């Protein structure tokens, strides 16, 4: 999850859009009105790591526990800091509003000092707002004391991420499409794994719905899912795309599978494997 607006802008420039997920608990919003934080897909995260735009980090222990300890030990101190910050922001707002008000009066030719200010200041008090921070004040304190992550550990972490939330073939499809300048977002709405835009999602309609990676050699193409994907695609002007990774033979022939995978999935190998994907775009022929 991304909490910092500047980081979001950077990611967007890289064609990594994620999904905004922030909303108010009491007034849940639909996708058009969502805000920070930005949720990234696993594939996007891995792409960022492999291309050197992000690094994986291990945090010590469950964060919730850590935070509660901090609150116990340093709670009062943190409260004071936050309180001071808030008061300061109120002061600045008051000052600003007063200045604006005086300018307005001057424009109208009224002497600002003549007026009784008590009613006004009451109004100002009620119009002050409290800013909700996008990112935590406490968390950066933790990422300071990070554990060193060496290259093998990095691969382990990547593998952990992938085995829990996706698979390497899906990632390779993502990477291949990304290298063709497509921007992906989650494709659940159209029955696929991703949908792909030919550029920024705000400027283009998406062209493609991409199904989950198939095993290139052994997995039969399911015609039911093919027809449903392609028919829906025709209705929403998208092509249904199926794809797979060619040199997959390790994975299906167990045995040293884990070793082979560890060997294969080094960052360099993964980056050079982008040409080994095979895609087919499917569309209803318009008759029959």
């Amino acid at each position, binding site marked *: 999850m991304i909490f910092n607006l500047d980081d979001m802008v950077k990611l967007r420039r890289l064609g990594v859009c994620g999904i905004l997920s922030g909303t108010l608990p009491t007034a849940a919003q639909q996708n058009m009105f969502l805000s920070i934080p930005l949720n990234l897909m696993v594939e996007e995260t891995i792409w960022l790591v492999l291309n050197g735009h992000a690094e994986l980090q291990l945090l010590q222990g469950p964060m919730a526990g850590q935070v509660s300890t901090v609150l116990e030990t340093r709670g009062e101190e943190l409260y004071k800091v936050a309180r001071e910050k808030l008061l300061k922001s109120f002061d600045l707002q008051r000052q600003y509003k007063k200045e604006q008000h005086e300018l307005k009066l001057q424009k109208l030719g009224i002497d600002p000092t003549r007026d009784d200010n008590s009613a006004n200041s009451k109004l100002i008090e009620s119009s002050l707002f409290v800013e909700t921070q996008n990112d935590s004040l406490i968390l950066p304190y933790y990422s300071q004391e990070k554990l060193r992550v060496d290259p093998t550990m990095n691969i382990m972490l990547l593998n952990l991420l992938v085995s829990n939330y996706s698979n390497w073939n899906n990632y390779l499809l993502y990477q291949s*499409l990304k290298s*063709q300048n*497509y921007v992906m977002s989650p494709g659940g709405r159209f029955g696929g794994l991703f949908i792909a835009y030919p550029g920024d999602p705000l400027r283009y309609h998406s*062209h*493609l719905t991409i199904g989950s990676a*198939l*095993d*290139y*050699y*052994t*997995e*039969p*193409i*399911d*015609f*039911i899912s*093919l*027809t449903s994907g*392609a028919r829906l*695609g025709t209705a929403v*002007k*998208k*092509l249904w*795309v*199926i*794809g*797979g990774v060619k040199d997959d033979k390790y994975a299906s022939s167990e045995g040293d599978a884990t070793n082979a995978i560890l060997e294969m999935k080094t960052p360099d190998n993964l980056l050079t494997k982008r040409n080994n994907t*095979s*895609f*087919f*775009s*499917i*569309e*209803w*022929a*318009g*008759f*029959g």
Partner: protein
Amino acid sequence: MESNASDSNDRHTIETLVKENLAYFQYWKEVQLEEKSMPWRGTKLRLVSGIPPNKLSNDDPEVTKEYILPVNMTQYKEEFITLECLDLVFENLCDKNTKRIILGIANSDGTVVFYFIYKGIHKPKKN
């Protein structure tokens, strides 16, 4: 179901069904079974070719000969067409510059549905 007779191995039945559907139901011309064949999982795959009565896609410059790969829907069985198979069909049964073939999927009730398959990533057709 009766149509179990037209098993996935029974290429001839599916090929004939697709061919006749094109000729008599979709009014295609010059529908024929292509000579070239490709061995695949114990059977021989052959394409059906023909000329459609009108342009199939607004992006096509003109009406051209189309190639159809007949397959069985086999809702409850595993079909044997894999990604590798499609690549091989494009490689062995088509010209070098073929961009698409048509998948003719035969259902158990005798109807056939047709889907374009483009090699690689393709742009959606203009409507």
